[in-house]
């Protein structure tokens, strides 16, 4: 307890920087076939799941870490990580929220998501991931009534093996790039969502990720399937305690939308970004990919990226079904020594497919922000269109803002439009706000929120409020 309080005292800049004293079960350090078997065994997985993992591991051996990204990072020693860490008290799974370890609940309270509160008042079903194992899934009754499956990945593997088997790895195959394959081999838990035919999910589904134990990599795997004519909105929020060493987060998220289905996926990412001198912080190397498999399907990504020492991710849409729509709204804020290389990929394969990309990047301090995106219209994707807008805002001349779009148009019926601008907050705007009684930081917060308005509008209400606050907090100390 003492150390914990000291931690909070010492590093109070980051309000979520605390660790919880819970005994953990860890897999032996390092990556090997045995560790993978250990993970699979402890989770009591069927043989096909173990085969899936081993196949990925086999492939991983021949893969190299990619190095084309802009932010470079010191080499990660994959043998020095724990690939599994679960709170000990989880061995006997709690039956309901009341059975939960009170310390766990305390943690969530500090994060601002008291489970019961949220479950009762907000009508949001929360599937909280605490160090790799899903702690509790709330609001199950209401969801079950509609036939919606919302559970942890491990539970889904046990209870719904057919669905998992059918869809897992179809959007991000085990033979994908290094980090995705690593995840396929060692993923511990995550969320699983299945929305049956014609069902509009009555509430926002939400997961809260948190990395607790040190030297663990967080490898979740999320799979969302929206069957014909269904709709779901999924929220994801992330925080991690402060530590000096860097932690790796390499999650895989797969979305599948069948005919006429719609998936809306929102992320507010607030991993620990490292201290003012760039020490510590999370490496956020996440693979997110959505497949618009059926006709008239739609996938929409919204992300607010304020944390992580290094963010490196490209939530993508594969628009396979005719008339399908892909959207990407992003705000990325980097301060101090943070680095972000993020954007999206829109791959148009079906006819009449449409995609829209709105990206807002804000860099301050010594940070570096890169938008990197791909728009690829295939020769068969007749009458498709894309609109891309990426704006960057720079604060100070020690930071960088970069735009690297790749545009490939192989279809003469299709249109691609791309716009990008770079600017700074003008003295006049600041002056105007200050004249009306705002202090400089409030003024910057206001202007930046205005700059991000188009994206913030896309977030569900509960998240939008939090995101707006985050935008302000992230830029503290960047003016003056």
């Amino acid at each position, binding site marked *: 307890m003492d150390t914990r309080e000291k931690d909070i005292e010492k590093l109070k800049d980051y309000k979520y920087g605390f660790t919880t004293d819970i005994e953990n079960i860890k897999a032996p350090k390092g990556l090997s076939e045995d560790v993978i078997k250990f993970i699979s065994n402890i989770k009591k997985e069927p043989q096909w799941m173990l085969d899936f993992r081993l196949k990925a591991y086999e492939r991983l051996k021949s893969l190299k870490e990619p190095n*084309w990204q802009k932010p470079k990072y010191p080499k990660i020693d994959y043998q020095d990580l724990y690939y599994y860490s679960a709170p000990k008290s989880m061995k006997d799974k709690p039956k309901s929220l009341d059975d939960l370890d009170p310390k766990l609940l305390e943690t969530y309270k500090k994060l601002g998501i008291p489970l019961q509160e949220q479950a009762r008042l907000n009508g949001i079903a929360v599937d909280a991931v605490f160090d790799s194992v899903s702690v509790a899934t709330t609001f199950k009754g209401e969801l079950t009534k509609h036939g919606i499956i919302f559970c942890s990945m491990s539970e889904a593997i046990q209870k719904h093996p057919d669905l998992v088997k059918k869809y897992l790895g179809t959007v991000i195959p085990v033979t994908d790039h290094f980090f995705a394959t690593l995840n396929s081999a060692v993923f511990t838990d995550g969320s699983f969502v299945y929305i049956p035919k014609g069902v509009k999910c009555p509430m926002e589904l939400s997961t809260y990720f948190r990395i607790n134990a040190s030297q663990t990599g967080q490898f979740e795997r999320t799979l969302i399937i929206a069957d014909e004519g269904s709709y779901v909105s999924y929220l994801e929020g992330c925080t991690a305690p402060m530590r000096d060493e860097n932690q790796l987060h390499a999650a895989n998220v797969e979305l599948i939308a069948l005919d006429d289905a719609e998936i809306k996926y929102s992320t507010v990412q607030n991993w620990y970004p490292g201290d003012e001198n760039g020490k510590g912080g999370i490496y956020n190397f996440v693979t997110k990919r959505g497949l618009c498999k059926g006709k008239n399907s739609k996938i929409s990504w919204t992300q607010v990226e304020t944390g992580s020492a290094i963010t490196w991710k490209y939530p993508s849409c594969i628009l396979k079904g005719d008339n399908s729509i892909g959207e990407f709204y992003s705000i990325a804020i980097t301060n101090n020594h943070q680095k972000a290389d993020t954007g999206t990929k829109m791959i148009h394969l079906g006819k009449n497919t449409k995609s829209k990309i709105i990206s807002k990047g804000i860099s301050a301090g010594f940070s570096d922000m890169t938008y990197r995106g791909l728009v690829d219209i295939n*020769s068969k994707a007749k009458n498709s269109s894309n609109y891309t807008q990426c704006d*960057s805002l*720079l*604060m*100070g*001349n*020690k*930071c*960088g*803002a*970069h*735009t*690297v*779009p*790749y*545009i*490939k*148009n*192989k*279809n*003469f*019926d*299709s*249109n*691609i*439009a*791309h*716009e*990008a*601008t*770079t*600017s*700074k907050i003008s003295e006049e705007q600041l002056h105007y706000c200050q004249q009306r009684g705002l202090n400089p930081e409030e003024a910057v917060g206001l202007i930046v929120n205005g700059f991000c308005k188009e994206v913030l509008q896309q977030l569900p209400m509960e998240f939008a409020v939090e995101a707006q606050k985050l935008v302000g907090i992230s830029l503290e100390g960047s003016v003056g």
Partner: protein
Amino acid sequence: MNEQLQLDFDKIIKTLKISEKEIQLKKSFLKKFIENGFPNRKQEDWKFLDISQIIKKNIGELTFFNDYSLPNKIDPSIFVNGLEHNKIIFINGRIEKIDFNYEDQSQIEINDEIGKNIKFNYENSLIDLNNAFTNKVYKILIKKNYSLKKPLIIYHSTNNKIKSKNVNLSLNFELEENSCLRLIDYFSDNTDKNFVNILYNFNLKKYSILKNYKLDKFRNNNLKYSFNNIEQDDNSISETFILSAGSDYFKNEVNCNLNGEYSSAFINGVFSLKENQQHEIRSTINHLVENTKSYQLIKSVLGKNSKSAYQGRIFVDSKAQKTDGYQLSKAILLDETSEFNAKPELEIYADDVKCSHGSASGSLNENSIFYLMSRGLNYQQSKELLINGFLLDVVEKITDSEIRNLVKNIIGLKE
């Protein structure tokens, strides 16, 4: 291929009259090229059009030996009519004639620069190839306060006497303070399937102006690569116009370093491509000091089976406040099989800058065609009129009226 390279290199060294030191230098470039080989799609800059594959597919094995000690006959029919001009004539990679008859000879210096190979801080194996095989490098110096009265046309011509499948040529220009040069690169090819590798270096001193027009209009089966390196001092201006339409493959690279305040760079390009042509423009503008400006406009019209790519990069150093950078690329795809690729890149480290880029691609607007047809034009005429208007926009950016008219004539654009 490596054996062939070494063999042909030794043959060329024998025919050239150069010192031992120069031979060693050339050998080191050859060694570097053999180590790296032709660039391929694994390299970011060659992602869209992979030259090693294109050479393999179109030419097969390259050969490099040409006897540069023997002169070639100049065919005057290639000359541009209706425009008085100075000439430099390259035939099969050999400089046959340098003619500055319209100018004050005391204001222009031409030096043989062999041994002083052009060096940049640039990872590009084609430059090594060029440095290893160029037979002569001239440096052309325009003296202080002198503006050339007439434009200089550099004729790049090949004929059937050529023995090799690869031609390398290189020139070095220096524009002293307050001087001005208008330079046209004019391509006429009578050979099949050669790989032409051109390297220019420009050094622009204060207040100097360079206007470079590259005109590749006549349909031919050659593959071409051109690299322009432009160093700019205070208040200097460079204008580059590229007409990319004739060769099977043409990649134009322009690397522009704005080293002096108030210097500016303009790059305008037109792709007009048909069957199986694959062309690319790659520009890099480095804004290194305050108050510099750059402007780029690239337009493509793409017919059957053609492919164009534009990679534009604006780099703004943290010192380069008050930078103004603009980039726009547009493409019209005329056929199902045409393809347009773009990578407009911004890399910015200063906050008080105005930088933007835009890119748009699509087909001809049906409504516009309908409008024109309702005014009595037929479908074909309407299409042509729209394409003309689309391209004219870029041609109008040429600041020199004489040359603008020449380009309009060559393209067949009418106002």
